């Protein structure tokens, strides 16, 4: 009897503790704020602050320090603490999938937008909350919103600069180019000549960090619009399963050109062990002349090394296949609320807070990687080099391969490994294209894609 009473007492105590920890949200968002500080959320005057922690899981580099500051401001106003769990990029999807499948406590998670990812990687229809009716939805760029939409329902919010942080282009050091009397290349041959001149003069032409496993992949799918320009209709054919990667001469040429750059030593001796996190440092020293990076690399370098100016760096498109197009890449990390979360209301409140126009503007103004955000009511902060890039190059009408062709993006890390195998002579460009097809077939069949069941 004594044991039963003790057990009841323990259970009652646990019940009380639980109810205290999950109090009803009280604070409401407000639109106040200035560029110097995040907008405030007006606390409710009569009730105590909530003591709720919402767990956010994200891959390395997806959460900016400015967002963490904003989260701190949100906590001050609402009492809702946001705990960011940042996972190394190479392990992120494994950890996230395990958490999602096991229903372990995450409230919000970030995932790369794009329809095949939303469906296959995150199973958004089951794992994420439908956000279609949230107040901020009408302010998102519809092209961007579409990347997080499945069957007409919006499952994610991309608080991500899909231009400056998504346009993967060549960043070059203007001073080095001037010193060696080099012009911005317009063709692949010109690019190789620039690389050779730099190499001859003891400057490593390109900082290409391969050790992270994902960066080297960017070279290939990012020129998707050029592939489409050279082979009109190929994107649609790939999605309809009437064309394959294997045997496509243009794609094989792009990969062969990339391999050529590696083999000629234009990525330096240590490319296989170089890290993406060291890109700004490498570019700041003057030992590297170029890197494949976001359109915001100049700002990032200037933020990390105040003696350097963002406009000391210029931009041009990835030169494979003589590409001269601005990439169109609307899929970036997208915030999703876990359908298994016990704090859905609080998580929605955070998204609502973050997407107040003042807070979005504050993020733009305080994040070196962001120059704009895909929402109405914000002002971009393009510098002269970026403006020059927009003026010089035409915007591609076709999306990059990872957004425009189904079942490519979920294979990103595999493609990274196959590319390393190509660089090190263990695979050929043709082998890699075959592997992509094999992966697409597996994914498409699993997704019961009608185009693959014919």
């Amino acid at each position, binding site marked *: 009897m004594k044991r039963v009473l003790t057990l009841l007492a323990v259970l009652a105590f646990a019940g009380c503790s639980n109810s205290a920890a999950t109090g009803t949200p009280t604070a409401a968002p407000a639109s106040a704020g200035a560029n110097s500080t995040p907008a405030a959320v007006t606390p409710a005057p009569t009730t105590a602050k909530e003591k709720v922690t919402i767990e956010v899981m994200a891959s390395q580099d997806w959460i900016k320090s400015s967002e963490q500051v904003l989260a701190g401001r949100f906590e001050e106003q609402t009492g809702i603490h946001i705990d960011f769990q940042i996972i190394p990029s190479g392990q992120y999807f*494994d950890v996230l999938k395990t958490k999602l499948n096991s229903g372990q406590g995450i409230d919000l998670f970030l995932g790369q937008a794009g329809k095949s990812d939303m469906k296959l990687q995150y199973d958004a229809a089951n794992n994420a909350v439908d956000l279609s009716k949230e107040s901020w939805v009408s302010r998102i760029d519809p092209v961007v919103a579409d990347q997080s939409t499945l069957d007409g329902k919006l499952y994610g919010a991309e608080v991500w600069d899909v231009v400056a942080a998504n346009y993967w282009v060549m960043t070059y050091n203007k001073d080095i180019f001037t010193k060696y009397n080099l012009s911005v290349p317009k063709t692949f041959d010109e690019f190789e000549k620039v690389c050779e001149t730099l190499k001859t003069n003891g400057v490593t032409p390109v900082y290409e960090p391969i050790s992270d496993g994902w960066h080297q992949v960017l070279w290939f799918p990012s020129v998707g619009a050029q592939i489409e320009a050279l082979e009109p209709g190929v994107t649609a054919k790939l999605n309809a399963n009437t064309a394959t990667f294997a045997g496509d001469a243009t794609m094989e040429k792009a990969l062969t050109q990339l391999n050529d750059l590696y083999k000629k030593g234009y990525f330096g001796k240590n490319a296989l*062990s170089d890290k993406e996190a060291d890109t700004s440092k490498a570019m700041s020293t003057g030992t590297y002349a170029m890197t494949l990076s976001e359109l915001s690399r100049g700002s990032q370098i200037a933020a990390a090394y105040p003696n350097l100016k963002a406009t000391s760096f210029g931009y041009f498109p990835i030169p494979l296949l003589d590409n001269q197009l601005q990439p169109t890449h609307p899929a970036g990390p997208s915030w999703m609320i876990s359908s298994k979360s016990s704090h859905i209301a609080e998580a929605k409140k955070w998204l609502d807070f973050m997407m107040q126009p003042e807070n979005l503007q504050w993020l733009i103004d305080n994040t070196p990687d962001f120059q704009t955000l895909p929402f109405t009511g914000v002002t971009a902060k393009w510098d002269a080099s970026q403006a020059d890039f927009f003026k010089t190059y035409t915007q591609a009408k076709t999306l990059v391969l990872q957004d425009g062709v189904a079942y490519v993006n979920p294979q990103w890390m*595999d493609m990274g490994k196959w590319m390393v195998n190509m660089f090190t002579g263990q695979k050929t460009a043709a082998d890699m294209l075959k592997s992509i097809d094999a992966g697409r077939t597996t994914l498409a069949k699993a997704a019961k894609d009608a185009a693959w069941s014919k």
Partner: protein
Amino acid sequence: MNKKAYPTRFAGGALLLFGIFVLLPSVLGLGLAFTDWNAYSNDINWVGLDNFATVLDPNGDYVSAIQHTILFTIATTILKTGIALGLAILLTDGVKRLAYLFRALIYLPAVLPILVVGIVFKSILDPQSGLLNSTLQLIGLGGLAQQWLTDVGLTFWTVVGVDTWRGVGYIMVILIAGLLAIPREYYEAASIDGAGRLQTFRYITVPLLMPVLAVTTVLNVLYGLRVFDMVFVLTNGQYGTSTVYTMVFDSFTRGLYGVATALSTLFFGVMVLLGFVVIRVMQRGEGN
């Protein structure tokens, strides 16, 4: 209480737990190797031997991983046994002063977690900032500096070297115990009969150490065949170092659970068979 049932009742709880958490998942795993179980679909369909065909496809990545695993096992077994035997003899018969200190120092890496060893060596072997290349450059041997963990022709042997460094102390301790168990009278008798050091080693040490060598060989072979963590930390299975279990992990992370289970099942069978063969061969050696 029935005396016969007594041990069964004691073991019952443990057996039940073993059955639920080890035996049952293993048997279920065996069945799943014949299905298309994957991360992207809720349906699980019977596919017969398709997964095994994928794993054994000579043009696929799995076969080269199997080859790497076998080579790794042979190389580390030979290196660890050879070096450990040399050190064991040296520290029991040759070096007298500070022998215990040397034993402890050589054994030390074995008690370090593999993850820690891997991370430390990754740092030491970094081509730009690593201790090894920096030291080589400092002493004027910069020409010997290498891309230790990314050069396809070299990386496999770097991993073998690091793993041997870590494992040799453990094998050495076992061999020292074996050497100390050999009666000294045999050596004295051989010495009186005029046997040289080599003859003593060939006709006394090796035969009498054979049971211990059988144990260390089985340990080395089984460790080598299921090596994962050292390779994963150092190279993530890249640059010609993929092994069976890095491929199992890789397949799981790609959501290809059926294929991963097939590879795992296949190699479990191989390990059981090899372990059995090694023990039989060694027992025959002992008999002779």
